[in-house]
């Protein structure tokens, strides 16, 4: 299979503008003849659905939540990057582009990243126009801060609730279009399958989570904005409902899944407290601007943090990476924490935690400044742990947070299945092997507001509107398959809960396909997953029926997909026989611990093709060209 990225040629600085001009348009009077399905209403989905409706398209949007305002985008705390250079500190579109390509460890498409940096400026303008209450200076202008690994202050924020405020902005735009009739909103409906007819996407099958009813929805195009798959690890910072089902079922219908092994581990989360744990809470990375990370120098030191004198503390990030210090990129910070804990110097009851200490910052800036910057985060920490970060250092540990991998898309954000698009975290496009802090919100909104509204027209102009029919045999077949699968899940009558399988899979993935990976562990994982899957399909139990709200059935259906998808992830991690960004293969490391890339062999996107459950998927390559930024080993020393 030849993967054509449809990337424009020529000067990267004008590529997007030229591409926009070269793309086909749809006559305003004809737009209403086209129907677009958007699945997922987080930042990417809500912004896209609203923008499509404003243009005059006929939109149907789906969320499995009770309201589009609940999506997990809402949980992003720290901020959103934009190359505004409001701080006069030397930022530019080129610098954001450079930082993102370098941060992604040279595994992203240059043209996509440049476009992302360009439109980042429009996002801030758009959100401010919507009434998003970003933080401001006394002069009334927007405030910025520096964030996770950036040497310029380009991050815009709304207290610790940036994701929430941006999502509410997109939700308000969506609400406006629902009111005007441009968007038909479907709440509490979960996408169960993509319907493909003669190789072209024609619609979806959904399950009404209240009544259990399966429904067929057809459209000219389907846009998946269904988020990431971080919950494959069971414990992650993702919301409980986040899952891979929509993306994975598209994959089973022919869409390639790109770079699934690129999963980001966030360095600052609250450590695990016990077996009951359902999720790990993220503490915004912005805390590292003022907090200092340390562990005791001595192994197994059980003294209270206040009793450990300065000279017996190891501020390991400041020691190892003097120029970036506590702001070292996420993957580096995460692995350094793991190294310290594996070395027996971890804190917390489990030994898997490190301190994040604000004592010096409070002394330097005063408690009120710290409260203004991080008040709500400190409160959240205290609510969960019962410990006040004003009095004692926080304890943190890395957790799965974001997935850079996703459905393969071309420059127009279309998958290899014509008519099926993927945006936001659900696609793989812009972050390469590692995402920079405050760039997830940027990408979600870039895709939804400023990229797909243009690129979708280019596809629509090539088709006849309304050429779909829910009575087609493909819809019939797809609905039957979904029904049979749900019936099978309900009929096993075994002895284990859906969650117990999810936890078992998650632990296996975290141990072997988590922060650090090696050949032996990956091969073992590929052997073990089918056994868990086998037991799942023979020993699962779900009380109740499918014709009602059944939370155990919803969970089981999602776990079933994780149990297949996990294998693709492990294959990708195994066959990418190099380290890059967040993908850290223990066999390929420089003496100082930095990831060792093999640019000659692996400077490509790995896009996996489905070949049947339990079969090794087929690996396709999209070569990456770096014409504007030269390969370099990342150095944050």
């Amino acid at each position, binding site marked *: 299979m030849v993967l054509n990225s449809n990337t424009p040629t020529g000067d990267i600085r004008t590529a997007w503008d030229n591409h926009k001009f070269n793309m086909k348009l749809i006559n305003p009077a004809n737009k209403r003849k086209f129907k677009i399905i958007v699945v997922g209403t987080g930042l990417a989905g809500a912004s896209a659905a609203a923008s499509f409706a404003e243009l005059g398209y006929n939109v149907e949007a789906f969320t499995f939540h009770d309201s589009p305002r609940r999506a997990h985008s809402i*949980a992003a705390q720290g901020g959103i990057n934009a190359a505004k250079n409001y701080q006069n500190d030397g930022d530019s579109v080129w610098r954001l582009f450079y930082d993102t390509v370098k941060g992604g460890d040279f595994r992203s498409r240059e043209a996509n990243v440049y476009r992302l940096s360009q439109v980042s400026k429009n996002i801030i303008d758009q959100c401010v126009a919507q009434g998003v209450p970003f933080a401001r200076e006394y002069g009334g202008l927007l405030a910025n801060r520096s964030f996770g690994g950036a040497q310029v202050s380009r991050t815009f924020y709304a207290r610790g609730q940036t994701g929430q405020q941006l999502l509410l902005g997109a939700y308000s735009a969506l609400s406006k279009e629902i009111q005007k009739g441009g968007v038909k909103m479907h709440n509490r409906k979960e996408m169960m399958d993509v319907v493909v007819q003669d190789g072209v996407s024609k619609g979806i099958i959904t399950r009404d989570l209240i009544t259990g009813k399966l429904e067929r929805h057809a459209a000219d195009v389907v846009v998946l904005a269904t988020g990431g798959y971080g919950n494959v690890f069971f414990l992650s910072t993702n919301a409980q*409902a986040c899952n891979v089902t929509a993306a994975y079922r598209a994959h089973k219908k022919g869409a390639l899944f790109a770079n699934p092994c690129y999963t980001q581990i966030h360095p600052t989360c609250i450590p695990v407290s016990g077996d009951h744990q359902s999720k790990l809470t993220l503490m915004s990375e912005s805390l590292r601007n003022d907090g200092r990370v340390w562990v005791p120098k001595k192994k197994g030191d059980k003294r209270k943090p206040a009793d450990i004198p300065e000279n017996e503390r190891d501020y390991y990030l400041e020691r190892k990476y003097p120029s970036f210090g506590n702001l070292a990129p996420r993957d580096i910070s995460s692995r350094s924490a793991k190294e310290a804990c594996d070395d027996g110097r971890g804190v917390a009851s489990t030994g898997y935690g490190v301190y994040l200490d604000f004592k010096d910052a409070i002394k330097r800036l005063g408690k009120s400044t710290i409260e203004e910057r991080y008040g709500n985060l400190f409160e959240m920490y205290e609510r969960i742990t019962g410990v006040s970060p004003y009095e004692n250092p926080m304890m943190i540990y890395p957790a799965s947070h974001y997935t850079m991998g996703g459905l393969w898309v071309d420059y127009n954000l279309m998958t290899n299945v014509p008519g099926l698009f993927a945006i936001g975290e659900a696609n793989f496009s812009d972050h390469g092997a590692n995402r920079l802090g405050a760039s997830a919100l940027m990408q979600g909104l870039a895709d939804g507001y400023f990229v797909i509204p243009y690129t979708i027209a280019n596809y629509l102009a090539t088709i006849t509107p309304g050429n779909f029919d829910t009575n087609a045999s493909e819809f019939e077949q797809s609905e039957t398959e979904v029904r049979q699968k749900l019936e099978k899940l309900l009929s096993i009558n075994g002895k284990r809960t859906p969650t117990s399988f999810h936890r078992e899979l998650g632990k296996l993935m975290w141990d072997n396909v988590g922060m650090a990976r090696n050949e032996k562990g990956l091969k073992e994982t590929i052997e073990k997953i089918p056994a868990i899957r086998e037991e799942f399909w023979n020993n699962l139990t779900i009380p109740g029926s499918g014709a009602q709200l059944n939370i155990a059935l919803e969970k089981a259906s999602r776990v079933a997909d994780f149990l297949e998808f996990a294998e693709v992830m492990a294959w990708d991690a195994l066959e990418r026989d190099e380290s890059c960004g967040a993908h850290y293969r223990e066999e390929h490391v420089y003496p100082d611990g930095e990831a060792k890339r093999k640019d000659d062999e692996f400077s490509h996107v790995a896009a996996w093709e489905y070949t049947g459950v339990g079969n090794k998927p087929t690996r396709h390559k999209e070569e990456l060209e770096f014409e504007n930024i030269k390969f370099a080993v990342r150095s944050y020393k």
Partner: protein
Amino acid sequence: MKLKLHVWRQKDPASQGRLVQYDVDDVSEDMSFLEMLDVLNEKLILQNEEAIAFDHDCREGICGMCSLTINGKPHGPQSGTTTCQLHMRTFKDGDEIYIEPFRATAFPIIKDLVVDRTPLDKIIQSGGYVDVRTGQVQDANNLPIRKKNADLAMDAAACIGCGACVAACPNGAAMLFTSAKIGQLALLPQGQPERKERVVAMTETMDNEGFGACTNHYECEAACPKSISVKFISDMNKELMKAKVSSIFSM
């Protein structure tokens, strides 16, 4: 610790619900309230009983999906805290806990502890936005906003749309929810062009969706997990009055 739970079980909207007693032991104080329910649900599933349905998602107090009335209080006993952020260290060994759905006329029960809160979306759809299209907006810094106003707008915008204010109100009013959105936009220059129409439309929808009126109990503020001030309610009433008066005099 060991606890005695009384949980509202209701098969569907049409059925009669009732409180069912469950004894749970081995509850750790580090568990969140919802994790305690997760553990109970795991047991129920293994006994071939249907899991207790409750809404939840982010489990970090921001998505507004979780609800529950715990011992008569929406989101439970700890102020400024959502149910998902409530931890079991708030309770002690031997406690009896009553767990019910958010109760309000406008929020019909779907199943067990799950209610339908879409009327809140309807309120927003009737005017809780600035009517701008994507693109064609000015540079963000061309619109300076007084820091004090921006901060106050953020106080209002912190609303997570959980509906605790409605469940806490003896009248089932959505005044705090509605006034928070109106307050946010009234404080900002972006909200000015539609200011009058917005307050009229949103309060009208609020009435039409079955929410009650405000009789100044202030239970909403006490229950709000984001501690949003009832001051926004009095501001909204002023906004409404001004809008109505001006519509009389400026035809």
